[in-house]
């Protein structure tokens, strides 16, 4: 579904990604793990067109999307939930969801998507008319994911969904991610610092270190890898 070949990104003179290649199969959950500054967020931003790739190629569903404008990439079904729950705090929950369906023209489909989002996150329906800035951290993350789902994603990219959320809620959010994948067939690319949890729910994983992929494989196998255990899984 997604094919990344030799993708590189630089911020000015500083290289953030030094040519990474990986692919994602339709229907799977793939996770990208790595330390701070390894290039995880940059990878997602390059895939969704928010930063320009210096070199390499990104193919999505058979078409070359390298350096397309972000709104054209979203229109093809590659949706990005940015790090730090970037919701529109001055709009209501309802309006945030409406913005998520910005590129959708089919009203019936939008209504179905809303029900589908409320089915996954009933909390959002309870808070419909509240300004999004007044939601709790966990609810804001739910809203950010819900908003992305309004855009009919084929591939959903989640950047650190556990960041700054109460530990109790993290598990709920991850269960929802699995539900979105299993029940609704959305392919997922998950970037996470919480490597334990990410490896637990994903099929495949890539480990990023200073802009390069240093390890790749089935999540189950990687969880048992002693090197990875020492570096990311806390012994």
């Amino acid at each position, binding site marked *: 579904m997604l094919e990344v070949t030799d993708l590189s990104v630089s911020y000015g003179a500083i290289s953030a990604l030094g040519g990474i290649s990986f692919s994602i199969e339709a229907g799977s959950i793939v996770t990208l793990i790595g330390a701070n500054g390894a290039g995880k967020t940059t990878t997602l931003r390059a895939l969704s067109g928010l930063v320009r790739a210096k070199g390499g190629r990104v193919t999505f569903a058979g078409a070359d999307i390298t350096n397309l404008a972000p709104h054209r990439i979203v229109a093809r079904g590659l949706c990005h939930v940015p790090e730090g729950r970037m*919701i529109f705090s001055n709009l209501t929950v309802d309006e945030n969801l409406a913005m998520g369906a910005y590129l959708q023209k089919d009203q019936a489909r939008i209504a179905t998507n809303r029900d589908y989002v409320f089915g996954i996150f009933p909390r959002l329906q309870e808070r419909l008319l509240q300004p999004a800035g*007044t939601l709790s951290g966990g609810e804001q993350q739910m809203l*950010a994911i819900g908003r992305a789902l309004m*855009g009919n994603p084929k591939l959903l990219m989640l950047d650190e969904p556990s960041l700054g959320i109460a530990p109790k809620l993290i598990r709920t959010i991850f269960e929802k991610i699995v539900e979105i994948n299993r029940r609704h067939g959305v392919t997922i690319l998950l970037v996470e610092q919480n490597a334990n949890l990410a490896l637990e729910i994903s099929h495949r994983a890539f480990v990023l270190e200073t802009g390069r992929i240093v390890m790749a494989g089935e999540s189950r196998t990687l969880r048992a890898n002693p090197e990875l255990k020492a570096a990311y899984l806390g012994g």
Partner: protein
Amino acid sequence: MPRPHLGLLAALAAAYGIFAFSDRIDPYHLDVLVGIGINVILAVSLNLVNGYTGQFSLGHAGFMSVGAYLSAAVTMLLGPRLFGGDSSAWQQNSLFLAALMAGGLGAAVAGLLVGVPSLRLKGDYLALVTLGFGEIIRVIFQNFEPLGGALGLNGIPAYTNIFWVLAFAAFTVFTVACLVHSTYGRGFIATQDDEIAAEAIGLNTTRYKTVAFVVAAFFAGIAGGLYGHFKQTITPGGFDFNRSIEIVVMVILGGMGNTIGVILAAVLLTLLPEVLRPVAEYRMILYSLLLILLMIVRPQGLFNLRFWKTHH
């Protein structure tokens, strides 16, 4: 009929009512009212850019001057040629409306020319580019002799009356309100709240910023046309950096992204220097002190209910 449209009709009727009775209103009060109306147009339109869309333009007076000069050129050059020496009120008014539109559209084109290359820049950079634009426009008018050069343009016909000013103020408020409260228009607020998130869900934020910029420039041009045909004389110095700052202050004081607050601030800041006239030389000091005080007491602006909810 939807509520905003009814509001616009009511405002237009009220504007006409005031105009019909303008003989009985003290001319000084009428002048202040015209000043208020023009400032409302300027502040409410700038609020679309600086408030709702979260950009920072410092060039509103520049766009105003484009409208002022262009519309004055239309009425002064075209008027005598079309109607000869004496023209009816109807002819004058239609010429004036055409001149205002020309001024507004000219300013909008200027807005597009400045906006397209610079709206990719963020925050401070955009402020500097618009500041630079305002100065360039001023210097161009200062050295362009056919439009009066540094001496300015004199003898502009006095076509502006209270009806035109209040009607355009109402129309500005109406347009901005309809734009921002539409499904399309939530994109302005989304762009302001979080540009990256807005892009990530597929908004073309550059286009939103450009639309906001061009619409705001259009109304600044209209305000310039009204101003020129009210004062009957315009000079490049009247549209300097200070004028832009005055408008920015109205937006900040009113509460970024709150139209009602910005209207009140425009009224307040136009009245304040007038009310302070008796204290003569201390006027500007008091004016500045009041501004500082207001910002300390209400840093979020006079009327910023939504932000207030978010941050407390």
